[in-house]
């Protein structure tokens, strides 16, 4: 009972860490990019400052913004927090991930997206609608790809419970799985698309016709905007953590000892840092692609994920 | 044999009486009265038979068994309701000046004459007299078909006359051969050997070869009157050009009686031949008629013509069912006879009113009936759904049984049957829906319509669809046993 309680406590803390860490990751990526594009880089903690500033401001609403517009940021943020809660960051077992498995995780993302898109359309500006439309298009391809990629894992571990699955892989030790290769690739592509990064979207731009994600939050200000931004940072972090902890789970703590936890924290930080370097490089070398090539990009991701599942079924399961 | 005499004499008296009454209004009333009296008598007769089993008249000239007694009742009933309908309808026609006073006399007299012929054909025990009655049925109706004297109606009447005449002539040849075969076996005590009862009792001894030939002639002969494709060509013309009450009784009664004759013959032939020849021939004709008529439905422009094709279709189905033989199919066919003639006559009544509302029989000019005159519109809709075999109407029950009988003995024939049903239904609905629904064009006027017969008929059909009353199913089962040679359900 006690360690059960411990476990819950741990998962709560882990979630907090997750939420708190998200801006840091964002800042780190931005910084790396600036260095790579040899621009003067903002501080690592710039995102925190932005958030604080936004929280402090007064809200400006469009005249005919409806209650939905105001409720959306909270719901989006809440959905992201919940998703963060079920993804093991530094330690398995994570009892919280029994509440909601990967499918529910995808569900949370969809929920957030649903409200974000609606919020975008609420004011009735052309950009809002455009952003919503494009976001839904991209998502309708990215979401299944992501699910498929994760299904590779869940079918390998024959469970959809993330922490159990990761523990299973951890226990299996180093096994080269062709299916994971495909899954990893597609998950990476999905991550780029879902978190609004080049080549699908450019988080830096407000160039009207190119933006996806930004277009939906155009009308937001102050705390609402802050919540939205933070939520998207958390989302990025979730994807990053998923990739790192599923495909190279080593170092993640499987017991609640201080040592183990510390190791886990260090490990995950290292992994994320490394991953962000890759992302930054990727963003620097590539250019944003035309919107109508995005579906092909994601279609490819979907295909890869499907290949992953199929190779798993065909090659890796004993008949 | 009191009721039987009444059943026959009443209409005969009606002929003479109506031939003398000059005023068509009074005549119409008398017509209704006589028909009603006949119906009462027929019910009495049916009741007797139900109580005391088959009856043979003293001269052995008439024989009432379970098979024909309910047809007698049915015929008298439809005759009555149609008479009720025909009174306002024909008055309207006279009002529109389509018919003169004189011809109304002819009309009423011949109406009763036709009923008499039908009842005679049903009740008689003598194959020869049966033939005479069938011929008489043609002769009485042929002048009514050309009642309006339009070129079309005359043409229709001529075709009706010639084709049915020739056809019926074949039937007579068949009858002669039947007599011949009988006489060879049963010796020549004259008169008796043509009695159906006698023939049926000695069917087994009759010579197969002769009966086969005889059956062919009788099939072609009576089949022409049943309206089997390709002998059907007179039917749509006669139905569409004659006055609507005539169409109602032709579809509702004449076809039935012709089929009745055919089945009687089949019973004899089956008794003699021990092959399924008769059955197979009937199945073939039935199926062909069923399918072809279904296709014809798609190309109709005249509302009465369309429904006459639907009659052909259903006659085909019944012939098919009788052809299958066996208890289930026969029961189904008998039931279908009943519900079809009730429904179809109801439909023709409604159609008559619809045509008067629109002032034409052209389908594309009949529109939005349920907005112009709701009772007629709904009546037409209900009737068509009923005839198309939608439950809870009785037609569904009989078609259900036919399908299952087929499924039992000829599984693969269910496919063409289903196709036929769907095609026919599509044909009906595509024409029906615009007539019933939509915005009525200018110039459609309400008419004095007596929808009582329709209501009664459809109510009966509905009742039969929900549950068959015991006495009726009792008749059907006896009849089934008679026809299918002792097989019972």
């Amino acid at each position, binding site marked *: 009972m006690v360690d059960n309680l411990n476990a819950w406590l741990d998962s709560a803390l882990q979630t907090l860490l997750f939420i708190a860490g998200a801006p840091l990751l964002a800042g780190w990526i931005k910084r790396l990019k600036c260095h790579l594009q040899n621009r003067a880089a903002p501080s690592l903690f710039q995102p925190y400052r932005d958030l604080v500033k936004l929280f402090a401001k007064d809200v400006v609403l469009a005249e005919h913004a409806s209650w939905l517009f105001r409720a959306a940021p909270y719901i989006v943020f809440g959905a992201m927090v919940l998703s963060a809660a079920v993804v093991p960051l530094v330690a398995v077992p994570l009892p919280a991930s029994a509440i909601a498995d990967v499918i529910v995780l995808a569900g949370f993302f969809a929920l957030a997206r649903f409200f974000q898109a609606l919020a975008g359309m609420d004011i009735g500006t052309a950009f809002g609608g455009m952003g919503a439309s494009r976001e839904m298009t991209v998502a309708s391809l990215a979401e299944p790809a992501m699910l498929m990629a994760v299904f590779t894992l869940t079918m390998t571990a024959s469970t959809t419970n993330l922490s159990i699955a990761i523990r299973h892989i951890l226990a299996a030790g180093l096994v080269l799985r062709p299916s994971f290769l495909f899954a990893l690739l597609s998950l990476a592509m999905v991550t780029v698309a879902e978190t609004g990064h080049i080549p699908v979207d450019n988080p830096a731009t407000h160039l009207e016709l190119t933006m996806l994600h930004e277009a939906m939050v155009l009308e937001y200000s102050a705390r609402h905007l802050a919540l939205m931004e933070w939520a998207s940072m958390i989302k990025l972090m979730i994807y990053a953590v998923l990739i790192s902890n599923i495909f190279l789970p080593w170092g993640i703590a499987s017991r609640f000892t201080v040592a183990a936890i510390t190791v886990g924290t260090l490990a995950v930080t290292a992994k994320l840092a490394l991953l962000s370097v890759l992302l930054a490089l990727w963003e620097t070398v590539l250019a944003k692609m035309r919107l109508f090539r995005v579906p092909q990009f994601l279609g490819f991701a979907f295909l890869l994920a499907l290949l992953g599942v199929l190779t798993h079924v065909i090659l890796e399961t004993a008949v | 044999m009191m009721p039987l005499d009444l059943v026959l004499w009443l209409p005969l008296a009606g002929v003479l009486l109506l031939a003398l009454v000059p005023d068509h209004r009074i005549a119409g009333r008398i017509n209704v009265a006589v028909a009603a009296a006949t119906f009462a008598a027929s019910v009495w007769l049916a009741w007797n038979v139900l109580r005391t089993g088959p009856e043979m008249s003293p001269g052995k000239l008439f024989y009432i068994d379970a098979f024909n007694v309910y047809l007698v009742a049915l015929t008298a009933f439809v005759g009555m309701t149609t008479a009720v309908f025909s009174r306002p309808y024909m008055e309207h026609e006279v009002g529109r000046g389509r018919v003169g006073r004189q011809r109304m006399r002819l009309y009423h007299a011949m109406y009763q004459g036709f009923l008499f012929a039908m009842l005679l054909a049903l009740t008689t025990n*003598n194959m*020869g007299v049966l033939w*005479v009655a069938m011929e008489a049925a043609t002769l009485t109706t042929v002048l009514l078909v050309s009642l309006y004297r339009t070129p079309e109606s005359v*043409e229709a009447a001529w075709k009706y006359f010639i084709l049915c005449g020739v056809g019926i002539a074949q039937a007579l040849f068949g009858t002669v051969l039947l007599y*011949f075969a009988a006489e060879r076996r049963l010796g020549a005590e004259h008169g008796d050997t*043509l009695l159906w009862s006698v023939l049926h009792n000695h069917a087994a001894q009759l010579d197969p070869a002769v009966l086969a030939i005889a059956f062919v002639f009788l099939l072609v002969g009576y089949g022409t009157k049943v309206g089997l494709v390709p002998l059907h060509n007179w039917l749509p013309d006669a139905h569409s050009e004659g006055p609507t009450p005539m169409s109602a009784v032709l579809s509702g009664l004449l076809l039935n009686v012709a089929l009745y004759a055919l089945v009687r013959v089949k019973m004899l032939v089956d008794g003699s031949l021990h092959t399924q020849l008769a059955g197979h021939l009937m199945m073939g004709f039935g199926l062909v008629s069923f399918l072809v008529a279904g296709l014809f439905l798609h190309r109709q422009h005249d509302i009465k013509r369309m429904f006459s094709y639907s009659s052909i279709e259903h006659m085909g189905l019944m012939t098919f069912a009788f052809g299958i033989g066996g208890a289930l199919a026969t029961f189904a066919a008998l039931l279908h006879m009943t519900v079809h003639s009730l429904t179809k006559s109801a439909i023709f009544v409604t159609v008559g009113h619809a045509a008067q509302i629109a002032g034409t029989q052209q389908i594309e000019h009949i529109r939005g009936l349920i907005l112009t005159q709701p009772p007629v519109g709904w009546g037409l809709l209900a009737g068509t759904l009923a005839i198309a075999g939608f439950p809870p109407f009785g037609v569904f029950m009989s078609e259900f049984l036919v399908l299952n009988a087929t499924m039992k003995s000829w599984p693969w024939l269910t496919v063409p049957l289903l196709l036929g049903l769907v095609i026919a239904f599509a044909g009906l609905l595509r024409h029906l829906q615009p007539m019933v629904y939509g915005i009525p064009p200018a110039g459609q006027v309400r008419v004095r319509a007596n929808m009582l017969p329709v209501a009664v008929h459809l109510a009966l059909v509905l009742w039969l669809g929900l549950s068959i009353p015991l006495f009726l199913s009792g008749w059907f089962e006896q009849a089934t046993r008679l026809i299918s040679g002792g097989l019972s359900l």
Partner: protein
Amino acid sequence: MHLSALNLYGQGILVSAALVLFTSFVMLAQTRIQPLIYAFAWQGALLSVTTALVALVSGHSHLYISALLTFGLKALLIPWMLYRMARRLHIQREVETVSHPSLIMLAGAVLVVFCYYVALPVAQLSTLVTRNTIAVSMATVLLGMLLMITRRAAVAQVIGFMSIENGLFFAAVASTYGMPMIVELGVAFDVLVAAVLFGIFFFQIRASIDSLDIDRLNRLSEKAE
């Protein structure tokens, strides 16, 4: 049995049967209305003669009645009615063009053979002197139909119809020494009424399409518009 084995009457019956068949062919060949009617009358007469002979041979008295009936009806009354009608409609001299008359003749001949072939089992069954006449009567019936099919004049069709009736009657007499009396009477009555109705129809048709060419009665059809 061999022909010579029959008595004179029997041979007479066969002869008249042959003549009846012959008259059918005559009608088939005859394109003018008036002679057609005459031929029809002759057929009726021959029919009644045959009936009388059969009555003589078989000694069925009621056959005499039907012989008289036939004579009165089919040899006198109906032809006379038709004749009068033809006069009043001024068509008695009308000649109609029949396509391929020789072909039709041939068809008729084939029909006779066919009927013989069909009627064979029946004939073998019979013990009457008149057994092969069944084939003849069947042929008469079918020839009548052929006549109706090949002719466009309404009158010709009626005659065809009536000759079918003749064939039937002939069959009844020849194969079974006649039907029961009541049937005979009923049939005769029907035929009479039919003849009257035909008369009425001539005028109706004349009134509607002022011609008696039944090929012009083709308003009602299902042909694609």
